[in-house]
C-alpha cells in the first residue's frame, strides 16, 4: 500500500509514523514550506484534556497518554505541571465547579482552588484581584521545537519520504477514487491519500468537489527574553478577561503570552499588529505584576484552523473510498497529534477508529448538522 500525506506538520508526521509502525512500507509526505512551518511550530506547546465536550476530553486523554508512551522512543521532553485558570469574579467559580464536575466524571482530576491555594502554586500572583482558580494537574507543556524535530528525524529514519517545499495543487479523481496529487514538483500517485494541511485542506479538497468548513483565524503570540523559573504551572489563564489571555514559560525560559483578539480570518501571515503587545501584556500584568518589568523580544502570527464547532475533522472523506482528512483542529492540533496518527491509521487499515467517539468528528457532521459543542476554547 502506497500512502501520500499532504501536510508535513505534526499531524501529518504522526499519521505517517503510525502507518509505518503498523507495516505500511511506502509513505510519502509533501509539505509546501519547511516541515512544521504551520501551526506546529507557532503554538504555545501546551497540552490538556480538560475540555468541555466528551469528544475532546476522551481523545485528548488518550493523546496525552500516547505522548508519554512515545517519550523514550523519541526523546520527547514533556512537563506535566498543570493548567491554572484564574478567576477575577465570584460567579466564575460556579462555572469552574460545573466544569470540574464534568471533568471528574471523565476521570480528569481538576479542582477548584481558593486564593490561598492559588498562592501556594504561584506565590507572586496578585491575590487582591482574583477570587480563586481551577487547576488541572494532568495538563502540561513541552519543548515543541525539539520534540517536532525528533519526530521528523524518527519518521525519516523509519523510511518515510518527506518532501518539503512541495505544494499539493490539486487532487485527481477517477472512478470514485483519488488517483494522484499534482504538486508544483510533479504528479504523485498513491493508493491512499490523507489531507492534513490545516486550513489549506479546504483548497486541496475543494479541487475534488469536497467542501471543508475551515477558516484560518489569526493568532498573535509574543515572547519575552528568557527568565528563571517564574511561571510555576505549565499555563496560567486570565479567564475573566475577554479573549482569555494566557501565559506559559517555555522550557528555555521565555514567557509566551497570547490572547484571543478579533482579527480578519485569512489575514496574511505577516500582517503585524503592534496593538496585541499591550492588549496581551496589560491584563496579564494585573494578575502577575512582575510582568511590568520584562522585555518583549519577539512577536509572530499563526492560525487556528477553525471549524464551526471548534473540533477537528477526522476520517474518511465521502464519496471517495481512499481519501482521509485530519484537519480543523481549532487550536489543539499539536497536543492532539499522537492520537490523530493512531485514529487515521485505524481508519485506513481497519476501516474504523479504535476510539469509537472519533466517529462523531467525521466531515459528514456538517451536512447532517450533528455538530459538537465545546465552550472552553482558550486563547
Amino acid at each position, binding site marked *: 500500500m502506497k500512502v501520500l500525506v499532504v501536510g508535513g506538520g505534526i499531524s501529518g508526521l504522526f499519521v505517517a509514523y503510525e502507518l509505518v509502525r503498523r507495516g505500511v512500507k511506502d509513505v510519502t509526505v509533501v509539505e509546501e514550506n*519547511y516541515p512544521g512551518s504551520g501551526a506546529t511550530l507557532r503554538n504555545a506547546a501546551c497540552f490538556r484534556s480538560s475540555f468541555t465536550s466528551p469528544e475532546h476530553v476522551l481523545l485528548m486523554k488518550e493523546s496525552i497518554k500516547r505522548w508519554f508512551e512515545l517519550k523514550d522512543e523519541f526523546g520527547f521532553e514533556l512537563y506535566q505541571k498543570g493548567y491554572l485558570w484564574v478567576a477575577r469574579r465570584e460567579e466564575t467559580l460556579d462555572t469552574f465547579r460545573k466544569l470540574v464536575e464534568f471533568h471528574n466524571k471523565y476521570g480528569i482530576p481538576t479542582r477548584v482552588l481558593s486564593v490561598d491555594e492559588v498562592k501556594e502554586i504561584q506565590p507572586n500572583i496578585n491575590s487582591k484581584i482574583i477570587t480563586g482558580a481551577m487547576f488541572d494537574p494532568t495538563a502540561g507543556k513541552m519543548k515543541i521545537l525539539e520534540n517536532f*524535530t525528533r519526530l521528523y528525524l524518527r519518521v525519516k529514519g523509519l523510511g518515510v519520504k518527506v518532501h518539503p517545499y512541495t505544494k499539493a495543487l490539486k487532487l485527481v479523481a477517477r472512478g470514485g477514487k483519488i488517483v494522484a496529487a499534482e504538486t508544483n514538483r510533479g504528479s504523485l500517485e498513491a493508493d491512499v491519500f490523507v489531507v492534513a494541511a490545516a486550513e489549506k485542506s479546504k483548497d486541496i479538497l475543494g479541487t475534488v468537489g469536497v467542501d471543508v468548513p475551515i477558516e484560518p483565524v489569526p493568532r498573535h503570540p509574543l515572547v519575552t*527574553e528568557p527568565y528563571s523559573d517564574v511561571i510555576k504551572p505549565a499555563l496560567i489563564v486570565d479567564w475573566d478577561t475577554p479573549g482569555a489571555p494566557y501565559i506559559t514559560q517555555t522550557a*528555555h525560559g521565555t514567557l509566551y503570552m497570547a490572547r484571543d483578539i478579533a482579527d480578519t480570518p485569512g489575514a496574511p501571515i505577516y500582517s503585524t499588529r503592534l496593538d496585541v503587545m*499591550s492588549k496581551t501584556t496589560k491584563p496579564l500584568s494585573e494578575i502577575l505584576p512582575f510582568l511590568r518589568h520584562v522585555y*518583549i523580544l519577539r*512577536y*509572530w502570527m499563526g492560525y487556528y484552523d477553525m471549524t464551526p464547532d471548534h473540533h477537528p475533522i477526522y476520517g474518511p472523506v465521502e464519496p471517495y473510498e481512499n481519501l482521509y482528512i485530519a484537519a480543523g483542529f481549532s487550536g489543539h492540533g499539536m497536543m492532539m497529534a499522537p492520537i490523530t496518527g493512531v485514529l487515521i491509521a485505524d481508519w485506513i487499515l481497519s476501516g474504523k477508529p479504535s476510539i469509537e467517539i472519533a466517529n462523531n468528528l467525521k466531515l459528514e457532521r456538517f451536512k447532517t448538522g450533528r455538530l459538537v459543542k465545546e465552550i472552553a476554547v482558550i486563547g
Partner: protein
Amino acid sequence: MGGEKRTVIICRCNDVTLEELKKAIEMGIDDFELLRRYLRLGFGPCQGRSCIMIAARYFARATGKSISDVLANFHVRPPILPVPSRAVVVRGEGW
C-alpha cells in the same frame, strides 16, 4: 586557554556552539529553518545578527545548498529590539 577542546560559540544569545551545530546537521536535520528552531539560532535578543550568517554558511557548505536558498525562509520578527513591557502596559491599548 587553547586546550584540546576549543569551544566556539556561534550564538551568544543562546550559547550555541559550533559543535552543537555540527552535531545537529549530522543527526540529519536537513532544513535550515528546522535547524534554527532546534538550536534556537536567531531566537535571542539580537535576532540572529551574528549567528545566522555563520550557521547559514556552514549549513550551505555541509548540504551543498546555496546561501540564498538556505536563507529563503528567514524572517526577523518585530519588535527589532527588545521592548520593555511597561512601555506597552502604561501606554494602554491604543497602539
